[in-house]
């Protein structure tokens, strides 16, 4: 298990390296020059050249990349071209906000999605099952920004019980948490239902029932535990997505999180900030996937990571 984890962590370094290279190359190919954007108004070619030099953009591309790698090894991605904020500080500042939003929407999605999925599977084919599944489709397909505006109008403006925007109180995270969590709740409900139904058709469930275990005891202890692997896979990656921020939700609710940071960095071609943000997002996904993989071993004793495995 330990050696497997170590191996995966080493792989992570290569994955991040590859991603950084691809990002760097893409940014050279995509049209858009941060300097042109900075000097929108009255700049002459000499001024542009001067600023390019100051930012080190006149260096050969491979030198720029090596400089980036050198810094990245020390978690130093440089400073933003526009805000002059240290990139790692900006990432941390936005991360703190995004984590809160991610937790709020994750709690909402998991508390609504997983129980509804279980319930729906148990009541399979009944009206209530159809109802839950219709709701989940609405949850998955309703655009998040639309849900957000509706929530803002109802709870923020009309009922005036929750803040319309902002991020300085727990209450402020409720509406964005719901708006962001709705589609995850929908997909969690569906995967839970499918997975539960598959498990509940197994022989051991019938055996357990025959032994006289109470119905909900069977469902929760025997069925759910065995149905968890696909659920954990989905829930884990969903949480990863949440941790990388949601541009739309953050914009609508004025939450300065990772999503907004990434989009701003992209639209400004703020290269240091963009590289830093991409590295962060890649890191989150790699780590979340690793945790999900490791959790399989706990969920299903048949899965063992060790010598010869993986």
């Amino acid at each position, binding site marked *: 298990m330990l050696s497997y984890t170590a191996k995966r962590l080493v792989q992570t370094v290569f994955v991040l390296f590859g991603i950084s290279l691809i990002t760097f190359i893409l940014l050279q190919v995509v049209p*858009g020059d941060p300097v042109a954007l900075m000097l929108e108004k009255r700049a*002459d070619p000499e001024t542009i050249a001067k600023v390019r030099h100051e930012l080190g953009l006149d260096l050969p591309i491979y030198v720029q990349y090596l400089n980036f790698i050198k810094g990245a090894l020390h978690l130093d991605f440089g400073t933003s071209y526009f805000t002059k904020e240290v990139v790692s500080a900006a990432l941390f500042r936005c991360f703190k906000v995004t984590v809160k939003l991610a937790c709020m929407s994750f709690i909402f999605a998991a508390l609504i999605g997983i129980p509804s999925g279980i319930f729906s599977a148990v009541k399979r084919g009944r009206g209530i099952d159809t109802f839950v599944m219709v709701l989940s489709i609405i949850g998955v397909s309703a655009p998040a920004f639309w849900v957000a*505006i*509706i929530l803002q*109008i109802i709870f*923020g403006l009309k009922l005036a019980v929750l803040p319309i925007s902002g991020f300085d109180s727990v209450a402020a995270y409720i509406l964005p948490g719901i708006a962001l969590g709705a589609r995850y709740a929908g997909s969690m409900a569906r995967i839970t239902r499918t997975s539960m139904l598959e498990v509940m058709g197994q022989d051991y469930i019938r055996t357990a029932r025959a032994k006289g275990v109470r119905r909900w005891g069977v469902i929760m202890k025997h069925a759910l535990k065995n149905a968890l692997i696909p659920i954990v896979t989905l829930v884990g990656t969903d949480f990863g997505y949440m941790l990388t921020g949601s541009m739309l939700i953050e914009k609508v609710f004025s939450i300065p999180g990772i999503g907004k940071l990434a989009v701003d960095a992209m639209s400004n071609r703020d290269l240091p900030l963009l590289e830093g943000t991409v590295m962060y997002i890649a890191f989150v996904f790699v780590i979340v996937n690793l945790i999900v993989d490791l959790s399989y071993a706990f969920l299903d004793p048949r899965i063992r990571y060790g010598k010869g495995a993986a």
Partner: protein
Amino acid sequence: MKKKFAGAFLLGAMVLSLAACGSSTGSSKPAAESGSDKGAAVTDAAKAQTTAGGEKTVRVAAVDPQVALDPQQYTYSIVMKITDNITESLLKTKGDGSLEPVLLTGMPEISEDQLTYSFELLPDVKFHNGETLKSSDVKYSYERLIKMAKMATLLENVVGYDELSAGTADELSGFELKDDTHFTITLKKPYAPFLSVLSTAYTAIYPEAACEEAGDTWGMQTLYGTGPFKLDSYQTGVGAVLSRFDDYHGGPVKLDGVDYKFIEDVNTQVLEYQAGNVDYVDVDPSVYPIYSGNPQLSSEMHGFQPTGCYSMTLNVKTFPDAKVREAVALSIDRKAICESILHGTATVPTSYIPAGIIGHDDSLPEFEYDPERAKELLAEAGYPDGIDLRVTVNTKYQGNVAIATAFQEQAKAAGINVEVEQVDSAAWSDMKHSGGVDCGISNWYVDYSDPESMLYPMTKTDTNSSFWHNAEFDQLLEDGIATTDTAERQEIYAKAEHIMTREDWATTPLYNETKYYLLNPDITGFEIDSTFRMFWKDADIQ
């Protein structure tokens, strides 16, 4: 028990979805309008709180500048919206375009040959850090503007500009310090808009020692000026908090502070206004039709016409024949665009130089839509079968995307086959500079109330993407800045404009817009000018 548990969640899910479904019957428009009746009670209650606490703080919904609050480095109007209340320039442009002294005892004296300007500073003007304003701070600020490069060319006519800009000199030699309150500035050649330039936010006066010490943090953590409010805090993504400066040289300030809240989404901004959480908000054109019909808000909505216009620019490298450019200008139906896409918030222009600025010729007719004539012109130019035209628009301005799409349809009648290309801001700036924009839609506003500010990008730089140059036009602009007589300047700039928009057709004006904002009716004395500058100095909450 567990059944109940699951049921409770189901109920929760139901409530949520019903809330969402209930509103799906109508578009966001009726939803927003219906918000007004109940929202009204909330609005009034919350607005009252502003004054009940004794604290007179105005809350402004603003767009996050994401950069240092330093117009010398970042030339965005959203930066100046904040800094204009913290820092001051020597002079101020009033609503009628005339200038008044702010940090000076009177208007500067100008020598006979129009080259030397003598200034006298007000005595005992304090910066927010307690220091007294001195002539050397003015010199420092102007030299810094030049070193910062972004808007340096504003001072290009000052003696010693070239040397300082090129780095061969450390000082601006045309700036002569006499004593702590007296100094002169010498120009290379007469430059009529010079004093107007000194009224812009770019030429705000910073305290030398503090600004030097702050270095890169100037405008982020530290910003001192001589203005009515001092900067307490600024956090990108959050907001900027300003509080009254008690030693303000311009007399007592009534407000206790101004609180800028950064709210990015234009709809959320207005919702916060409706809920009474902000006192001022800009109404974006995209949400204007939603809220303009709302009786609760219409009396609180104000409009102004910014000095500038939206125009369509043709790259003369791609379209060297002026006839082709004229044909393109004739094949866009400006009136239809103003009425439909812009919901009547815009008018068809008669000239590129907007009304109120020297050089605006009010005898000219509106730019017209004449696809038949356009077809003839194309035939004369050797394109009887029409032409293909790639129109590039910056997606930051969604209105432009809609306009380009309408143009696509309108231009068909003239035999012009329009392809719309959408790019983001960074790509847009890049393509403009590198000549990659054949036909672009963009806007331009004056930085100071002078035609030079309007026409500058057409001649000195190629930032307007047309790469058009005309010797006569360039000469007229040279003459224009060297002339001080208003009537003469009127003639010069009207002629220059005629060459640009009605002979060479390099740039054709599309529309003059009206900007709208919502303001808490309890607030008096608020000032916003046609160059987007926003002043809370004389404001009060009743």
